[in-house]
């Protein structure tokens, strides 16, 4: 039973926070999008867009901040596609998000092959080109900001109104489409920062599909967090802890294959989702396109 004491440590806490960071960024973005009524299942793809762009631009500019900015740009671009499809063309939001995810499964390797002659990964970045801490500060610093915006500003009030009852919001003079565009675009920017953290924070290069389902885990976290910023942060910390613990368990517990430990975060996500979903209520107009009555 030595492994139990090996597990509980300060480093576990630190890696919990580290691993929660990309989830939290994507989840806060998803939260804003969903509170405005737009399902964002494309968070995964937006993270990948951010991760690839950050690594590629950082490589050329030798400056991670340029990489981070470019990643935000990429996130905005991809989110814009999703927003146009959902808001202008009434596309099924889940299908559109899935298209975004597949697009970013293929897009980054395609670009990587053209830029670096290899589709597997981008070139290794030097230690000096990484920002291992800033995204963490951004992620956790954004929690009170998102809370404030959502509950204490006019924009936040309108955003929630649009997600709950777009007809009434429209009657009251709220520009439903514009608010939804803003929410989806912000979600793309935040998810992309989360993705950038994966490639130029936690590691030092982009690899194909490196987000490994984190966009979906972030969605589960925001549902678990009842679409509220602080609860969502706690949910992300829980998932971060699950991943951190599973990483530390590898090689520590005897006779268990590493694959069984690697799947822990995914199983945890399913269990949490099943256990808590009935206890929370989604925004009422979530997933429904809105067209002005003429």
């Amino acid at each position, binding site marked *: 039973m030595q492994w139990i004491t090996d597990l509980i440590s300060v480093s576990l806490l630190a890696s919990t926070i580290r691993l929660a960071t990309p989830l939290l960024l994507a989840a806060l973005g998803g939260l804003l999008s*969903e509170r405005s009524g737009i*399902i964002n*299942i494309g968070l995964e793809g937006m993270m990948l867009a951010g991760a690839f762009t950050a690594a590629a631009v950082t490589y050329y500019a030798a400056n991670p901040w340029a990489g981070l900015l470019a990643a935000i740009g990429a996130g905005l671009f991809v989110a814009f*596609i999703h927003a146009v*499809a959902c808001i*202008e*063309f*009434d*596309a*099924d939001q*889940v*299908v*559109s998000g*899935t*298209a*975004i*995810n*597949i*697009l970013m*499964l*293929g*897009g980054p*390797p*395609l*670009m990587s*092959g*053209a830029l670096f002659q290899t*589709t597997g990964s981008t070139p290794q970045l030097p230690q000096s080109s990484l920002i291992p801490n800033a995204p963490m500060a951004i992620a956790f610093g954004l929690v009170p900001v998102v809370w404030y915006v959502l509950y204490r500003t006019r924009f936040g009030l309108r955003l929630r109104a649009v997600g709950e009852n777009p007809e009434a919001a429209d009657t009251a003079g709220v520009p439903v489409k514009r608010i939804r565009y803003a929410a989806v675009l912000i979600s793309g920017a935040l998810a992309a920062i989360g993705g950038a953290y994966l490639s130029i924070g936690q590691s030092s290069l982009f690899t194909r599909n490196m987000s*490994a*389902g984190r966009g*979906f*885990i972030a*969605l*589960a976290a925001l*549902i678990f967090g009842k679409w509220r910023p602080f609860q969502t942060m706690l949910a992300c910390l829980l998932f971060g802890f699950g991943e951190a613990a599973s990483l530390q368990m590898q090689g520590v517990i005897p006779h268990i*294959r590493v*694959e*069984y430990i*690697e*799947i822990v975060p*995914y*199983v945890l*996500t*399913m269990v949490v*989702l*099943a*256990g808590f*979903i*009935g206890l*929370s*209520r*989604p925004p009422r107009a*979530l*997933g*429904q*396109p809105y067209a002005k009555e003429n």
Partner: protein
Amino acid sequence: MSKVLRNLMFPLIAVLAAFIAGGIIVALIGDDPIETYKLLVGSALSWPEGIGYTLFYATPLVFTGLAVAVAFRCGLLNIGAEGQLTIAAFATAWAGLTFSKQPAWLLIPIAAGMGILAGAAWAAIPGLLKAHFGSHEVINTIMMNFIALGVASALTQSYFKQPGDAILETAPIGAGAQISRLGKWIPGLPQRIPVNMSFIVAMIACILVYAFLWRTKWGYEIRATGSNPDAAEYGGISIRKQIVLAMAVSGGLAGMVAINEVMGYRYRYYQGFSSGYGFTGIAVALLGRNHPAGVLVAAIFFGALMRGGLFVDIFTEHVSKDLVLVLQALVILFVAAEALFRRKNRMAKGMPL
């Protein structure tokens, strides 16, 4: 405009739009779009190489396309076909190894059946979770894709790996479980081209899915649940049961990929054998209008692209076969946004997500 004509026209417009958008991307990357598309589509038309390989790549896509289509008809998006076919392939290989001494007439149904059952069971789990807890199938099926890969890889390494084999694969299955290649019967088609009996199985599956959805009570209830769950429930249909049933049928169809990959091609479970068949299945189903006939045509189309992608990889300067994934995504996007013309939401009103 007649319904049939419209059903044919919109997918064509979506494909055309996707190819134009993809062509712009190719040009931006620095290759000639026309030349690239010639490689992508043109290489599929030669006999026997092009057509043989196209049908080989199309086979798993028919199964995953049907899988996604059946779930879609019930208002569910199954993006877990990838995990379902992974578990199924492992189960088929397990059966083919465990009962390897059995004769073909017994072993073929056992091995294929194990794959179908495993795929159905794997998909029924997110079905049950949705039916009883309301948790969204999209998140759960994605999670189960990762779990499937982990479990199949761990079991292979622990129990079924050929000693000394550096690659993560099982030992070969018994000869009785190996099905023959179409080249055995078709003159001019060499047997080295891996298109096999499972292509025939895929065509039969199209007919069976059609009969199931449009000629049986269960199929009717699945479609009723998908088009209007409230009305279906009011009409006495148990939505929960339909969700689980649709997911199980969907997973079973995805599991049939194992017949092609394990029994007809590699004769073993092989980690990473699927190059995104499950995800391509989404594009196949949407492009095929969630109808078996459309699925068959769309699968052959995407099969040709998969074959052509290999040539793009080799013969263009910058573009890789990932272009095919990008084209798939664009097709899905354009088909989804095409709802503009109809103002009708095909998916049932979702559970909270």
